[in-house]
């Protein structure tokens, strides 16, 4: 208790020097929480977006289907059973048929994936309602990423070529009836979405599908022979891996930030131990053991972090509240950083994040304060009193 009281008195007494350290430390606190909160927010948003746009509550895949191997698409489809059709009618399942194809935008050839989806589905956010079946040709919606890469605009007509179930090539014209913005790249890049009925007709796969997306509820769902059920978490693994790899660089950045802050404290402590020799000798002469002096100096160092929490809270809390309610807007387009981000990101500042950051910084600060303070034990008090040790 005495150590805490004295340490507090020493820090407050030191005035400006203390506050400079505290501000530097609080800045690193707030930055770490801010960045981590942003990444967590991004992670959360990416999960939510993936669920809404792609995975739903999980998917039934035809047993041969492998999304990473388009050559499997030819063999991975099966007719819907009456039970599946019934669930589809109730809006609990959405069938998707997938096949390979080629489009010729502006005379160039581009291999794509064609996905057929129920025009009336409400389960996924893909704007299937914009698949205007009244147009002449096959209506299609594409993600903005795809639109940009293939230079497709709303109303464009483009030739599409595919192979039907018998392996025969056929061609037609698709009309872009809608372009949608999504943060989920796996339903955007290199693919077009057309009505399920059209794709089934084109490929001669009446009533067939490649995968079935289920609703995002806990309601029990039967198993279907010949279809494997992919859990939601398993489907989200990909997106999480992408985010993790994208955020690894940021972790390095805040490690550096933390190290810098610790260096400031370490430096202050090293200086203190040498500049305050006379004081140290005097402490000993007045009846403190060296161990108590070491403790005092360590507590002083650690207390910088405690003060930094207080100072950081003063400007950090309003900042965090403002950002997590209003979100942060990004001017940049997703492609610039290699992965699509929402234009407005809502950072997620969890209690867990705040507490663990505080804990790590307080412990680390105390530790780096202890290292130079340890030197005090080796000091000869009669020399220290005179302030002579070099």
């Amino acid at each position, binding site marked *: 208790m*005495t150590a805490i*009281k*004295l340490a507090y*008195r*020493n820090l407050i*007494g*030191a*005035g400006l020097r203390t506050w400079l350290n505290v501000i530097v430390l609080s800045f690193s606190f707030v930055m770490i929480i801010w960045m981590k909160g942003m990444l967590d927010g991004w992670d959360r948003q990416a999960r939510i977006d993936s669920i809404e746009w792609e995975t739903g509550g999980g998917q039934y895949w035809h047993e041969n289907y492998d999304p990473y191997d388009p050559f499997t698409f030819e063999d991975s489809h099966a007719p819907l059973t009456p039970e599946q059709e019934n669930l589809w009618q109730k809006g609990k399942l959405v069938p998707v048929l997938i096949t390979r194809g080629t489009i010729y935008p502006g005379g160039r050839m581009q291999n794509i994936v064609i996905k057929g989806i129920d025009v009336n589905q409400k389960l996924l956010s893909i704007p299937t309602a914009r698949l205007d079946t009244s147009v002449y040709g096959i209506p299609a919606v594409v993600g903005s990423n795809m639109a940009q890469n293939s230079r497709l605009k709303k109303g464009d007509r483009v030739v599409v070529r595919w192979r039907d179930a018998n392996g025969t090539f056929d061609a037609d014209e698709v009309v872009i009836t809608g372009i949608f913005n999504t943060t989920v790249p796996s339903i955007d890049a290199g693919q077009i979405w057309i009505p399920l009925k059209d794709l089934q007709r084109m490929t001669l796969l009446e009533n067939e599908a490649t995968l079935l997306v289920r609703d995002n509820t806990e309601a029990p769902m039967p198993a279907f022979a010949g279809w494997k059920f992919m859990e939601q978490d398993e489907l989200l693994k990909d997106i999480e891996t992408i985010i993790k790899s994208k955020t690894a660089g940021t972790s390095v950045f805040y490690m550096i930030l933390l190290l810098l802050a610790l260096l400031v404290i370490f430096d202050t402590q090293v200086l203190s131990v040498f500049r305050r020799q*006379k*004081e140290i*000798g*005097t402490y*000993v*002469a*007045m*009846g*403190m*053991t*060296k*161990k*108590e002096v070491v403790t005092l100096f360590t507590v002083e160092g650690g207390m910088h972090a405690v003060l930094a929490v207080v100072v950081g809270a003063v400007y950090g809390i309003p900042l965090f509240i403002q950002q997590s309610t209003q979100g942060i807007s990004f001017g940049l387009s997703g492609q610039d950083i290699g992965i699509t981000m929402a234009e407005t990101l809502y950072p997620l500042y969890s209690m867990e994040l705040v507490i663990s950051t505080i804990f790590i910084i307080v412990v680390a600060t105390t530790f780096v304060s202890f290292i130079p303070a340890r030197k005090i034990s080796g000091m*000869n*008090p*009669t020399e220290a*009193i*005179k*302030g002579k040790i070099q």
Partner: protein
Amino acid sequence: MTNNENQAIIALEHVVKRFPSGKTWFTALKDINLTLGRGEFAGLVGPSGSGKTTLLNLVGSLDSASEGRVDVLGMDVGKMNAKKSATLRKKHLGFIFQTYNLMPVYTVYENVEFPLLLLKEKAGKRRKAVMEALEWLGIESKAKSKPARLSGGECQRVAIARAMVKKPEIVLADEPTANLDAENSHHILQTMEQLNRELGTTFLFATHDEKVIKYLKRKIRLFDGKVAADEIIQS
């Protein structure tokens, strides 16, 4: 008399102190035998390098003797562990240094309060004792100042207040007037003499300042690490 055996508060027997000096040893104190009684106002005098500070440090348990025995308040300082000797200093000894050694970031009040915090005294008791000590030294008006804003004389008075606030049995003062002018030196010595008289505190100085020597009631002359003379001044 004051240096009566059974009233001895400080006793040194055959004390030798050696310091390593290159490959050999330098003997700073050579077979010192000395007894101080309670309430003495004594000084170690002698030329520079005669061992005054060294002897004071042994009594203050800041250093240990190479040979012989140092007793303070009836306890063998040489046999104490770090904790015990810290307790001895905390409870019974007051130090006054040539360079004052005040805590620069503390106010005068906080500096004087410091030894009482170490003793874990209650707030009310601390305040009373600090105000009293500031009064003795006539520095109440400076209570809120930091040492950097005080003159040398004022600083030394703060240091004396700090040494006296816990009413220790012994005050050890190493060249307390070395950085002070004549007027301040006299003022401070008069104050210490008064505290010695009123509180019965034992004072042991180390000095070669004539102004200090004039006030001493006992002069222990050191020369080349040995007690060359020991005279008691009758008043």
